[in-house]
């Protein structure tokens, strides 16, 4: 299964298509003697992982691309066994600790301790440290983050941490101050088009400019999505035309349709229907903040500014409350119910005002 996304992913810092100055700085970093802990952050599809792998390659050479997948077992104090999947090479190990749920703290402590204590076997390596790559650090519980901070300090001699997160707001300041932050913003419209053109050229698929433009608009500055969209277009219709339809992810369509149901009718009966659809989205693993965002976007399209502000306030309030509770559906439903009431009032007022 070789997707264009993986096939044409740059493996060298010098081969990156955008944020080139940053790439140069990272190269400098590698050439200096002491390497700090790093925190890569940026939106989804911006290229964080790509850059991290390129950086590792710069550090250790191509040996770092020989990956193997392992299951690691940890045991909690309450004697529960957790199994976590890790991807590693001779020089680094990559783990997503939030897979372990509430036991992420154990995973971090044991993993880093274990990795730090095993001595580097590679004799030819110029580096005297291993790299531990932790992804989705902003999903870690605060306990785990504090444990991470302590472990970072303890084992800094033998291993360096590279952390990857979508945003730094959920990362505790203690960790942020111990890492060098590398901000990876989303590529610009023009940069995305350039990459798409590049990929299509290598694939021997001529890409009309208008189509490239349309894809770049639709992908939300998410390069991964843009390339996938392009590949899907090619499978759908070859040769590519500028007018052709660009497929949207199914969940996005479903979300939009749900919003239109809400706009159609504002009754408890409709809400019941909406509830079923919300459950569908939840079951498919769509994150709740995406659901809120998607619904909000559609719902405020036909509202005047006054109503828009009110609805946004509702969305922000209920989305926040969700983080303090545990049954996600309650908050989504409450938001929709309140919107319905507000919208109904708005319609009645406008219609009433017409007479």
């Amino acid at each position, binding site marked *: 299964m070789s997707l264009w996304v993986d096939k044409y992913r740059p493996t060298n810092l010098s081969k990156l298509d955008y944020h080139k100055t940053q790439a140069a*700085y990272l190269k400098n*970093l590698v050439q200096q003697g002491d390497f700090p802990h790093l925190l890569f952050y940026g*939106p989804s599809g911006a290229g964080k992982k790509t850059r991290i792998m390129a950086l590792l390659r710069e550090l250790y050479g191509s040996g770092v691309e020989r990956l193997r997948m392992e299951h690691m077992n940890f045991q909690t104090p309450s004697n529960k066994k957790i199994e976590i999947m890790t991807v590693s090479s001779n020089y680094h190990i990559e783990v997503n600790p939030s897979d372990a749920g509430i036991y992420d703290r154990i995973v971090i402590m044991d993993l880093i301790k274990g990795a730090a204590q095993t001595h580097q076997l590679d004799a030819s390596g110029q580096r005297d440290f291993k790299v531990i790559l932790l992804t989705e650090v902003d999903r870690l519980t605060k306990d785990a983050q504090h444990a991470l901070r302590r472990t970072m300090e303890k084992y800094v001699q033998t291993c360096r941490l590279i952390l990857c997160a979508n945003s730094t707001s959920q990362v505790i300041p203690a960790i942020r*101050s111990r890492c060098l932050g590398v*901000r990876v913003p989303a590529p610009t419209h023009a940069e995305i088009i350039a990459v798409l053109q590049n990929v299509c050229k290598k694939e021997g698929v001529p890409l009309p400019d208008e189509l490239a433009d349309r894809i770049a608009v639709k992908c939300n500055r998410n390069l991964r999505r843009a390339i996938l969209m392009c590949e899907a277009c090619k499978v759908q219709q070859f040769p590519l035309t500028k007018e052709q339809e660009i497929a949207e992810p199914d969940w996005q369509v479903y979300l939009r349709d749900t919003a239109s149901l809400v706009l159609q009718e504002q009754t408890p009966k409709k809400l019941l229907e909406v509830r079923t659809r919300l459950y569908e989205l939840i079951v498919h693993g769509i994150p709740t903040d995406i659901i809120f965002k998607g619904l909000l976007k559609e719902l405020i399209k036909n509202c005047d500014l006054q109503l828009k502000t009110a609805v946004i306030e509702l969305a*922000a309030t209920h989305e926040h409350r969700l983080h303090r509770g545990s049954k996600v559906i309650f908050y989504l439903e409450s938001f929709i119910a309140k919107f319905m009431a507000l919208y109904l009032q708005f319609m009645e007022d406008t219609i009433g005002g017409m007479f």
Partner: protein
Amino acid sequence: MEKFIQVIRDKVKVFSQLTASAVRPDGRPCPPYKIVILDEADSMTHAAQAALRRTMEKESRSTRFCLICNYVSCIIDPLTSRCSKFRFKPLGEGMMHSRLELICREENVKCEQAALKCLVETSGGDLRRAITCLQSCARLKGSEGITEQDVFEVTGVIPNHWIVGLLKICQQSDFQKLEAYVEELMCEAYSASRVLEQLHEIVIKSTDLSDHHKSVICEKIALCSYRLQDGASEFLELLDLCSTIMKSNLKI
């Protein structure tokens, strides 16, 4: 931290009960007591501090304690009354500046004055933070000089034009533009809490906004900031704040 009280009971107590000789290994006289240094003492639980108090009293002949903390209010009164306090004030800007310059000279690093100034400002009196930032910038830039922009990147400060631009858009009444702007800001990966902090600074000092206006905006900033702490969606909170600013603008 959980086992801290155990550490106090075992290690510290045992250590402090040992007697100390009055003569150094090299034969010169030295004070006949040992020193126990407790760093980050304000994160000790009250129970641990209480356990420490007894040890301090009992072993004061042979052991002296040195507690280091950020906030003296986190140390219980019985402990503070047994200690003589030394308060360290935050470092002055001038002093920090000259120290950083010294380091630049020693390490052969070229640094713009604007960058140094920025370093000093963003560190908030924390010299360690300033020096670490300086070092990070130096590593990244290699032989090139450090500019103000580099310091911004490393410290996570959001370039001013983004914040000013945000306020400007809120003064207008085009919601679509606002939405697009917030999306763009989110794509830049800046921390929303940072946006709120910097926005707050600008709003307070602004001369364009009336006091009433400022109070409405600041209240909303406080609310959004609190919600962000709980882990709320950054996009929604920013959008909520901006639409409130826009609405309050239009009312006036």
